[in-house]
């Protein structure tokens, strides 16, 4: 089983298409979701869960942002963006009606459909829930096709938790949703502790499960280790990598990690392909 290489790449992958901001949702203090519709000359986009686009804030720059919308809804393009730098700040500050340059979709997908009949563990840390949301939409919609489905979601603090409405909808759809935060005061009545602590309470059979993990690299390392400790095979663990992507089509080499181009071979990788590479200090 492998993460899926893209089946669809734009005809002119280096040429941004104009998309218009239709709606802006402020998720948390520094996270915004943009809903985009095609502008003049741009075509609606189909994508797979886990893929990303290059978003261009005109006059500022371009960054890779995972698609966080529902893959079954091609009428709009959804991106959830955390304000961490110059370009992401500009994107977070856009208002309805603003124009964004979009290239994509790029990269490999979460191999969701390959898991039919199996248990699925989705482990997300912080903004890492955004690239997993398309997979969760799919799992919820086709819940009967899968065994136990578990979402383990960790955030820094309660007010940094994303997608509250969806978390409840996924619970209603029969997904075991477990949420924790690293830090909280007495007002928080939920779980307190790192996301790996949730693995002990998750209902799945390690021998028949696959896991999709997305979050900071350290979080993914700890989570993969904890899942392996619970008995999961490394080749059934998948992570989504992030690096400094520029061209997004494997020309420039900015995102190269050892022999892998994160933009083209990833961002979704089977864990054995990444385990050694992300532990090399010099890379």
């Amino acid at each position, binding site marked *: 089983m492998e993460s899926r290489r893209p089946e669809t790449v734009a005809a002119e992958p280096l040429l941004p298409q104009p998309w218009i901001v239709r709606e802006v949702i402020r998720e948390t203090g520094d996270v915004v979701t943009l809903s985009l519709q095609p502008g003049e000359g741009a075509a609606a986009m189909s994508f797979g869960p886990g893929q990303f686009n290059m978003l261009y804030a005109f006059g500022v720059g371009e960054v890779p942002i995972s698609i966080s919308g529902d893959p079954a809804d091609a009428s709009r393009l959804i991106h959830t963006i955390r304000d961490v730098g110059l370009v992401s700040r500009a994107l977070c500050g856009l208002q309805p009606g603003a124009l964004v340059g979009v290239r994509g979709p790029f990269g490999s997908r979460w191999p969701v459909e390959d898991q039919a009949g199996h248990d699925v563990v989705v482990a997300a840390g912080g903004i890492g829930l955004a690239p997993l949301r398309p997979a969760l939409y799919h799992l919820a919609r086709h819940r009967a096709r899968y065994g136990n489905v578990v979402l383990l979601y960790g955030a820094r603090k309660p007010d940094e938790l994303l997608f509250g409405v969806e978390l409840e909808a996924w619970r209603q759809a029969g997904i075991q949703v477990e949420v924790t935060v690293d830090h909280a005061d007495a007002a928080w009545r939920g779980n*307190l502790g790192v996301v790996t602590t949730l693995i002990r309470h998750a209902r799945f059979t390690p021998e028949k499960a696959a896991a999709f993990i997305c979050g900071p690299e350290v979080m993914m390392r700890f989570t993969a280790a904890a899942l392996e400790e619970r008995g999961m095979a490394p080749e059934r663990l998948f992570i989504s990598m992030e690096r400094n992507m520029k061209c997004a089509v494997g020309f420039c080499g900015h995102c190269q990690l050892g022999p892998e181009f994160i933009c083209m071979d990833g961002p979704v990788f089977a864990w054995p392909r990444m385990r050694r590479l992300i532990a090399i200090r010099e890379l």
Partner: protein
Amino acid sequence: MKHLRDVIAEHPFFQDLAPDHLALVTGCAQMASFKSGEFLFRYGGAAEHFFLLRHGRVSLEIAVPGKETFRFQTVGPGEVIGWSWLFEPHQAQFDARAVDDVSVIRFDGKCLRGKCEADAALGYSLMKRFARVLVQRFTDTRLQLMDVYGKQAP
């Protein structure tokens, strides 16, 4: 109603415990419950027990006079709380407060220490189980300290 011995045998902490050891630990155990907000134990108090959680969650925290209590972890069903009963001076190192109504199996530390001294195999089995929990907690704490979701995260 299930026998206490069976309840203990089904708890993950005592998974695969030898039958003779199961009988020994059961002799030091009793069911207990705590209402939401009650303390299982408090920092500095005598650490006379440890607890296997069956239902509900417990918050582990450190009270700082004049400041808001620092909460560092919640533990839930299937987990264990309390290891200070094993080590002198047998004093609790933090507070454990019930978040929900909680039901536990409470073990008498003095009773169990005596049995461990008399039966080294039981002592070794218990030590391995507690060492595993301690390693897990330290691993969790390391990840928590790294503040991986912060903007200055490593």
